[in-house]
């Protein structure tokens, strides 16, 4: 799925990273636990998380994750946006919960990691 299709599916809004809208995202991983995220070695993943702080961006950086979707309308802070720009990671948010956003995307065919 392309990032733009993911955002359509979850009524998501892109905060930063227009150049990523055409990214082909192969799998989704939903977690608020960053050590769980760090176990992933696959590429082309979107991180779906309720953790709206710098650590989610840092973790994405370490795991080579280029796209982050925040749930429950959690708007990223300016510091997060600045970090995301610096690291070229797209940042979006959806009004839906982690469960609903993940469920909708899974039903649309986005594959899980495990």
């Amino acid at each position, binding site marked *: 799925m392309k990032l733009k299709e993911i955002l359509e599916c979850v009524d998501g809004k892109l905060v930063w990273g227009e150049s990523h809208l055409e990214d082909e995202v192969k799998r989704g991983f939903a977690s608020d*636990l*960053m*050590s*769980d995220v*760090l*176990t992933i070695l696959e590429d082309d993943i979107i991180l779906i*998380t309720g953790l709206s702080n*710098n650590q*989610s961006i840092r973790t994405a950086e*370490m795991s080579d994750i280029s796209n982050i979707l925040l749930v429950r309308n959690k708007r990223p802070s300016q510091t997060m946006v600045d970090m995301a720009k610096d690291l070229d990671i797209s940042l979006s948010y959806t009004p839906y919960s982690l469960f609903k956003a993940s469920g909708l995307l899974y039903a649309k065919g986005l594959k899980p990691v495990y």
Partner: protein
Amino acid sequence: MHEEFTIPSKDFSVAGDASSKIKRILKQLNIPPQRIKQIIVAVFEAEVNVIAHSYGGKILCDIEEQRVLIDVIDTGPGIENLELAMTEGWSTASSEVREMGYGAGMGLPNIRKSCDDLKIYTKKGDHTHISMQFVL
């Protein structure tokens, strides 16, 4: 190539700064991205451990032609039960650390999985020294 980074205690605003710098160095050396990811996941976990659990410390990074050596040395207080700390899901992290997204009890297990050789010295009341080797 030898690099040293000072890691503070409890300051999560800088968590990942050292790992990020090491990642940039490894990228410049044209090491395959998958290998870099494995190395950096271990370094980042160790960096977060120093911030979350210790009185502060440092990361020493030595990059040689065939291997990367990472030494993470803190100033205490040491791990009471290393066997438990190596168990997936076991954690002593504070609620503050958990709010940051850490403390899932996967730090040391992730480190063990990522590196080719791991040596840990620790003693309660003393310090912790984690020595990781990655073959290139």
